[in-house]
């Protein structure tokens, strides 16, 4: 290999050396011959004669040096370029097809890469391990107060939260090869910049978080052990690079300044490196506080071993084995749990370590399946494109048969011919790749919004990396080989005698492979069209669901007064004042708030018991609770069926009351009798009674797909509230009063920022974002597939018509009617289309099965989707076939004769 490269670099030297060497030979030989008595001119001639043709030997020398392939490659490339520029229509169609196919794949792969494959932008991410505990599902746990995520894995529960106390002890006990660090969940908080409160995303971290991740702040310092002291009066704060740039205009002097984070006065000590967005890809962070300060800000009992709220990660330096770390953690953790006094016995957990190189991410969990599906669909599109290109190449190879035959007859090497064709395919592939990459780059900025959740676009690093380019190149070369090889191989295996006869017989125009390919394309587009139909129907189903409330003219926004330092009673007063002010705003018909917004993917579940007919205490499974203000049901449009609504008098001093929905009423009164007057208890000892004072209709709560859950509505005045989502029924277009609402809320208290200001209808759109995005993409892909299939049909028939013009001429001369000719050509498209439809229908059954988890209220092979897809496809095929058929009927005997 090295020799070959050397040979290429020293090409020029090599040629001149070779010439000189042969010249020397001739000279020496001539001299010798002269010495033997030949006259000078004769000697020279003889010497030349003996040596033979120098070019011949030079060529053999070059080949000996491994240079021939280079010459041939150059020749092949030139030939391919010439061929492509001569055949513009072919080149354009091929390149557009490849650009669309490769572009779609590159765009989707960029997402797959960013969400599923990329590692954290930290030092040696492969050394990171995330720590989880595992218990059999449904077993009692040992926490009092937990905040974190827990997932079900088979019959196991896998959770990521620990107590700060446990973490601290474990960190101290582990050997020095292991850096155990901890961080909290990301939460909203307010940061006061230039006297203006703004919402930011905050994270609490142990002091060694930066050291564990290998982050070196480009400005200032990271945290120190003493920063984790509980009694620090002004805790330090780290800013993310992006937040430093946007909120502080990248001001270097920020270090050492005080910053109000929530109610806490902090000192800015450093800025995190650019590109780092925490260990949960997709969720950005703005400020980092020490875990202790963060815990206190969130009013967590950080000294209690039963308050579980920190996540742990470990960096394991290589010779130290990861399994050893796991067993070490487990023994020490269990020893700690055993030493603590607990009220009720519980099972002891085991520890599980999960590769932490890519961080932990809801993004990955939520989008792994849809992304894989999209990748598959994009792959199918590319395959279809390749099939089209193969068809075109094949058609062209046949039309070039005479040329190929002459070349073969003149002694061209078959292998060389194949290589020449493949070079052309590769050239097409590489050009398509360039186009595809440009297309993907255009799509790049729009891509992350596909993964939007709750209207927030995740922060993902979609920039291409080596893996992206590698995959694009490999896929392109693979596909180029795929579509190039068969036509190349086929054209090199011509039967010389038949090919050299100029006029092809009628059989020659049939191109059986082309039809098979058409069938495959028809099948693929049918499958995608049916999939698209199913997804579109899902979106329609979700849109027409009975919500139980009226989303029209409903404006919503959220606020959290506790983030700005309001405590309990103060917060209640704030919210009550906000309600009054909003109600007096022109354009607002009615206003109320609730603890959780409607369809905001957040909810609270409540523990409720009731006394049955035998006065035995019964537990209610799966009851949801919603804290609300008076006038809530009237505002959001949930009907009050019996009893009364809350009033402002239902506060902490009054008797505890609640309203229930019909589902809940059926749980406590299975006989269907009115639940009003019944008492609910909030623990299993029959304490904390709550009287049911009203019955309301069932309404969706947190999720669009789930049926309305059994819900208990409690007055906010009796439950207390942190965050609230306001709902305003407006007289006209809700968005028209949005600016006024911002002003009103700022007048109530400028330190409390509002967020998520939008209409409830927009919120519903957000709740079905994934389905809508998927439907849009698959529909786009299906349209592309349909277009490709139509081009395929058109191409095959056009080619066939061109080949059959002499035959058509003869038929015309013999008196065939144009309609008959049209039908003859049209009929050619029937078998492949019919076969493709049958195969596509079978494949679509499998495909819609795959889609099942994204589908709502649509069965696999849904009849409407199938019918719609069939109609579209048949119409598309008919149009594509009609054009060449018409052309055939317009042939006159004269043009046909001229063709001969």
């Amino acid at each position, binding site marked *: 290999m090295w020799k070959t490269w050397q040979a290429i670099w020293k090409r020029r030297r090599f040629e001149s*050396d070779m010439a*000189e060497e042969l010249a020397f*030979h001739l*000279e020496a030989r001539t001299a010798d011959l002269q010495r033997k008595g030949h006259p000078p001119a004769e000697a020279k001639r003889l010497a030349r004669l003996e040596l*033979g043709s120098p070019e011949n*030997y030079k060529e*053999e*020398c070059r080949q*000996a*040096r491994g240079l021939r392939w280079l010459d041939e490659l150059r020749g092949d490339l030139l030939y391919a370029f010439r061929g492509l520029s001569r055949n513009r229509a072919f080149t354009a169609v091929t390149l557009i097809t490849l650009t669309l196919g490769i572009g779609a794949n590159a765009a989707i792969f960029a997402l797959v890469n960013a969400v599923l494959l990329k590692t954290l932008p930290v030092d040696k991410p492969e050394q990171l391990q995330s720590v989880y505990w595992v218990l059999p599902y449904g077993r009692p746990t040992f926490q009092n107060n937990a905040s974190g995520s827990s997932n079900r894995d088979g019959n196991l529960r896998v959770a990521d939260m620990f107590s700060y106390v446990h973490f601290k002890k474990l960190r101290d006990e582990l050997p020095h090869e292991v850096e155990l660090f901890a961080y909290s969940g990301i939460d909203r908080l307010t940061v006061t910049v230039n006297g203006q409160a703004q919402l930011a995303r905050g994270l609490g971290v142990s002091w060694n978080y930066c050291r564990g991740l290998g982050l070196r702040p480009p400005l200032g310092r990271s945290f120190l052990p003493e920063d984790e002291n509980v009694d620090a009066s002004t805790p330090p704060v780290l800013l993310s690079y992006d937040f430093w740039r946007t909120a502080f205009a990248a001001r270097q002097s920020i270090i050492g300044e005080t910053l109000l984070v929530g109610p806490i006065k902090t000192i800015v000590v450093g800025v995190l490196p650019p590109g780092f967005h925490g260990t949960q890809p997709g969720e950005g962070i703005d400020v980092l506080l020490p875990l202790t300060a963060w815990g206190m800000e969130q009013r967590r009992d950080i000294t209690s071993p039963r308050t579980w709220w920190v996540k742990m990660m470990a960096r394991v330096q290589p010779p130290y084995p990861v399994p050893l770390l796991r067993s070490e953690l487990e023994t020490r953790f269990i020893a700690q749990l055993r030493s603590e006094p607990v009220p009720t016995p519980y099972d002891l957990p085991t520890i599980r370590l999960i590769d932490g190189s890519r961080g932990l991410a809801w993004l990955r969990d939520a989008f792994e399946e849809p992304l894989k599906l999209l990748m598959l669909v994009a792959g199918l599109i590319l395959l279809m494109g390749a099939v089209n290109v193969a068809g075109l190449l094949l058609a062209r190879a046949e039309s070039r048969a005479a040329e190929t035959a002459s070349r073969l007859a003149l002694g061209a090497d078959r292998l060389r011919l194949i290589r020449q064709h493949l070079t052309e395919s590769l050239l097409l592939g590489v050009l398509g790749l360039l186009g595809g990459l440009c297309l993907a780059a255009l799509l790049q900025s729009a891509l992350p919004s596909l993964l939007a959740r709750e209207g927030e676009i995740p922060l993902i690093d979609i920039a291409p990396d080596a893996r992206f380019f590698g995959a694009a190149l490999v896929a392109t070369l693979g596909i180029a080989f795929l579509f190039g090889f068969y036509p190349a191989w086929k054209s090199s295996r011509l039967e010389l005698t038949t090919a050299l006869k100029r006029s092809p017989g009628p059989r020659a125009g049939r191109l059986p492979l082309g039809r098979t390919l058409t069938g495959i394309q028809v099948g693929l587009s049918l499958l995608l069209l049916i999939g698209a139909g199913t997804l579109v129907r899902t979106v329609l189903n979700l849109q027409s669901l009975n919500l139980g409330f009226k989303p029209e003219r409903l404006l919503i926004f959220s606020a959290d007064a506790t983030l700005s330092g309001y405590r309990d009673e103060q917060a209640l007063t704030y919210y009550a004042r906000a309600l009054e002010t909003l109600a007096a705003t022109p354009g607002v018909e009615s206003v109320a708030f609730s603890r959780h917004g409607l369809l905001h993917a957040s909810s609270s579940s409540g523990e409720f018991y009731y006394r049955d007919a035998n006065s035995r205490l019964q537990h209610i499974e799966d009851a949801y609770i919603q804290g609300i203000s008076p006038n809530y049901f009237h505002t959001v449009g949930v009907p009050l069926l019996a009893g009364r609504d809350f009033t402002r008098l239902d506060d902490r001093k009054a008797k505890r009351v609640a309203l229930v929905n019909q589902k809940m009423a059926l749980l406590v009164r299975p006989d269907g009798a009115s639940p009003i007057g019944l008492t609910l208890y909030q623990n299993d000892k029959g304490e904390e009674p709550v009287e049911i004072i009203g019955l309301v209709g069932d309404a969706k709560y947190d999720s669009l797909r789930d049926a309305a859950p059994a819900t208990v509505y409690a007055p906010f005045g009796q439950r207390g509230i942190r965050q609230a989502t306001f709902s305003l029924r407006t007289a006209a277009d809700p968005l028209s009063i949005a600016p006024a609402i911002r002003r009103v809320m700022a007048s109530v208290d400028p330190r409390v920022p509002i967020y998520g200001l939008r209409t409830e209808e927009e919120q519903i759109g957000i709740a079905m974002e994934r389905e809508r995005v998927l439907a849009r993409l698959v529909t786009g892909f299906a349209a592309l597939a349909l277009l490709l299939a139509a081009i395929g049909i058109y191409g095959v028939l056009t080619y066939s018509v061109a080949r059959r013009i002499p035959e058509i001429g003869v038929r015309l001369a013999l008196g065939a009617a144009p309609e008959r000719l049209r039908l003859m050509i049209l009929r050619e498209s029937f078998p492949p289309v019919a076969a493709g439809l049958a195969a596509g229908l079978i494949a679509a059954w499998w495909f819609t099965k795959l889609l099942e988890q994204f589908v709502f209220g649509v069965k696999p092979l849904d009849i409407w989707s199938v019918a719609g897809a069939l109609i579209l496809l048949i119409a598309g095929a008919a149009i594509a076939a009609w054009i060449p058929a018409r052309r055939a009927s317009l042939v006159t005997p004269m043009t046909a004769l001229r063709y001969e």
Partner: protein
Amino acid sequence: MPQRSDSDAELLPGTLDLLVLKAVSLGPQHGYGVLLRIEQITGNALKIEQGALYPALYKLETRGDLAAEWGISDNNRRAKFYTLTPAGRKRLREQAGGWNRLVAAMEAALKATAEEL
């Protein structure tokens, strides 16, 4: 294929490489010198196609059996001189051994008579 006269022995395929290696093993030579030396050591019995010599030389050089260097010839001209590399020496030994075995076997085969069988 070039024409050959009947009186010259036909060069068996693969033997040119062996002859070149042998010729160069007797001392560094330029291309024309290699030709002359082969003619000399074969007693002019083998007809060497002059042009075929160069592809053979280039092949052996690329393979690493020969090393080439530009030097000055006897008549004060710049010429490319070939020397045998250790790899070339090894190949020469191996090929010579193979050749000798082939010759011995052929000889034995051609001497065989009906009685000996």
